């Protein structure tokens, strides 16, 4: 069974009559790293939000199966509990809520759903400090409120920190590379690579080959007009880098 199977997914803005996903089909296998590329506004972030359950969108048709179960009716936290993780393109700031408080609440929510007791404070601190260090996240950042006062790149690293703490089954990384400096890009990629495993999959949304040099994808999908219009191997990304989207998108449209 595939880890993620999206069939004919159609979604519109909740507030407006604007359809963004137009019968999208996509399958992601366990252990796979799938890259999604596509022009600005093609609906990549929308896809990730719809999968994670953001309320701004209405699904009007289709389904999305995670481990064979349709997740589209579930609340966002239930989807998270099922192992879905989204690294946001624009991480949200939560003033007043301490980073550590937040991380602990998320970890404990997950543990509880798995029938585990709460994590002890020393264990938690050790865990976070270890991961933070790997990702070059300073103690000072851990002391601040969630994403408040973080630079663009720091926010992205923070998303990856959360991912590694929550160890999801399926991680969707929405332009996690944008805003990262070269060293950080390498650190983030190492973080992802270290987590690659036969029963975990990644969907990496990006505009640049650069990230894919570090995180080698198994497949590359091209999205345009709210659909996957072409799929191929890693060489597809190189092709896009050289020629742009005009050929593919033009043909599909």
């Amino acid at each position, binding site marked *: 069974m595939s880890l993620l199977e999206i069939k004919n997914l159609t979604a519109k803005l909740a507030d407006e009559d604007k359809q963004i996903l137009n019968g999208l089909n996509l399958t992601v296998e366990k252990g796979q790293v799938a890259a999604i590329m596509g022009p600005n506004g093609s609906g990549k972030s929308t896809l990730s939000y719809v999968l*994670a359950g953001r309320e701004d969108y209405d699904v009007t048709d289709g389904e999305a199966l995670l481990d064979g179960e349709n997740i589209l009716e579930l609340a966002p936290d239930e989807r998270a*509990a099922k192992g879905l993780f989204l690294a946001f393109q624009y991480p949200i700031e939560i003033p*007043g809520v*301490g980073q550590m408080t937040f991380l602990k609440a998320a970890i404990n929510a997950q543990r509880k759903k798995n029938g585990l007791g709460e994590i002890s404070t020393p264990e938690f601190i050790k865990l976070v400090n270890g991961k933070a260090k790997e990702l070059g996240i300073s103690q000072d950042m851990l002391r601040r409120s969630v994403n408040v006062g973080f630079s663009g790149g720091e926010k992205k690293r923070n998303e990856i920190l959360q991912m590694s703490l929550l160890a999801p089954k399926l991680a969707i990384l929405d332009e996690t590379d944008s805003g990262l400096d070269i060293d950080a890009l390498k650190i983030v990629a190492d973080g992802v690579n270290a987590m690659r495993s036969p029963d975990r999959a990644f969907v990496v949304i990006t505009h640049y080959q650069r990230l894919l040099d570090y995180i080698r994808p198994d497949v590359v999908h091209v999205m345009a007009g709210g659909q996957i219009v072409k799929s191929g191997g890693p060489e597809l990304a190189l092709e896009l880098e050289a020629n742009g989207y005009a050929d593919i998108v033009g043909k599909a449209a």
Partner: protein
Amino acid sequence: MPAVQETVEQVRSIDVDQYKYGFTTDVEMELAPKGLSEDIVRYISAKKGEPEWMLEWRLDAYRRWLTLREPEWARVHYPKIDFQDLYYYAAPKSNPAPKSLDEIDPAILETYKKLGIPLREQEVLAGVAPENRIAVDAVFDSVSVATTFKDELAKAGVIFCSISEALREHPELVKQYIGSVVPTTDNFYATLNSAVFSDGSFVYVPPGVRCPMELSTYFRINEKNTGQFERTLIIADKGSYVSYLEGCTAPMRDENQLHAAVVELVALEDAEIKYSTVQNWYPGDSEGRGGIYNFVTKRGDCRGARSKISWTQVETGSAITWKYPSCILRGDDSQGEFYSIAVSNGAQQVDSGTKMIHLGKNTRSRIISKGISAGKSQNTYRGLVSAHRRATNAKNFTNCDSLLIGNKCGAHTVPYIESKTASAVFEHEATTSKVSEDQMFYCMQRGLTQEEAIALIVNGFVKDVLQQLPMEFMVEAQKLIAISLEGSVG
């Protein structure tokens, strides 16, 4: 940090509409005859064995009160109160003035224990480091039933006792200060309180003394149809410091009960008073039946130069809250602070805020108010900041934010900002918004349930104020807020 987890726990485990302090205690009470008259005022004064001047003071207030009308400017609505249909005095019959804990009705001791306020010093002492000890004055309806750690405080020269006792033991101090901050003529409820106040706490900290422990009073309304009219007077003499905390609960009843307190604080030169309140009177049910009418006058006078008074309040209870803890910044270089969290849910109505009156030079004040409205409640911040002509270089910073949860509640902000001095710098900012959907989604994407996410975000919203509370009460207050917002989503 653990508090959030606890909050989250609490939110999960508590039923909607559950007020955990809603039980009643069965003790035989002695009540004054119902209604209000000069005779009742005399009755109360006699019961307390007060000096003649105090009776005259009360009678003056009573006569004045007869000429006053209930204020109507606040954004609160309730049926007219029949002041003749209340009991103005209720004391446990067994022993209204117990000399030691052994004389107290065990049912009352049990009540406080259930509320988490042990009155036996040895129980408090067990496992508590000396610096974390808290002295408690326990007021049950109209009388103080016990005050703990009095002897230890006395060693430091600190007087901490019920106001009734202070009137007997330290009449000259009481006479000098009572009514000097909130005059008997101040307002309808304060005047009523002056006539019929029953009990409350008295604190005097002598010059240069830093009070060796936190002081606290725990108010409990138990009897039906009884108004509670407590009076608290705290005097911090030159260069002294005291931190005081007040807590309150009441049984769940279908009728409304009146609580009209007066609190006066006096800070002399270089003195500091920190006054914290966790107000959790019974709020009524979600339909607005029952609950306490909390009509309170609290005022602090920074009488001496460089004195400081700081009010922190967490208001989650009461059907109606009408209270404006204020600071008169009379001494040069004096400072006033007001930190407030007011949570309203169900049919609660809150009209609360502060007054910072800058009279002295270089006076500073700071107001941080966080209002959270849910259910069908109405939550109003009302405040005054003023600088008089001679208050040169006065400074105020005000931040009042309101958060709305659900679309049936209201949040209102009514500040008055009056300056008569060019060199005074006033800055005021206010915002009203709802819990951000983006923040909710972000938290839920990380696996938190809707209620957990709300609790977390609300805790973030009120954090600046919570931090002002003494450590021991921060966790308690955090839980209380989460419980108060129970059932506000979904």
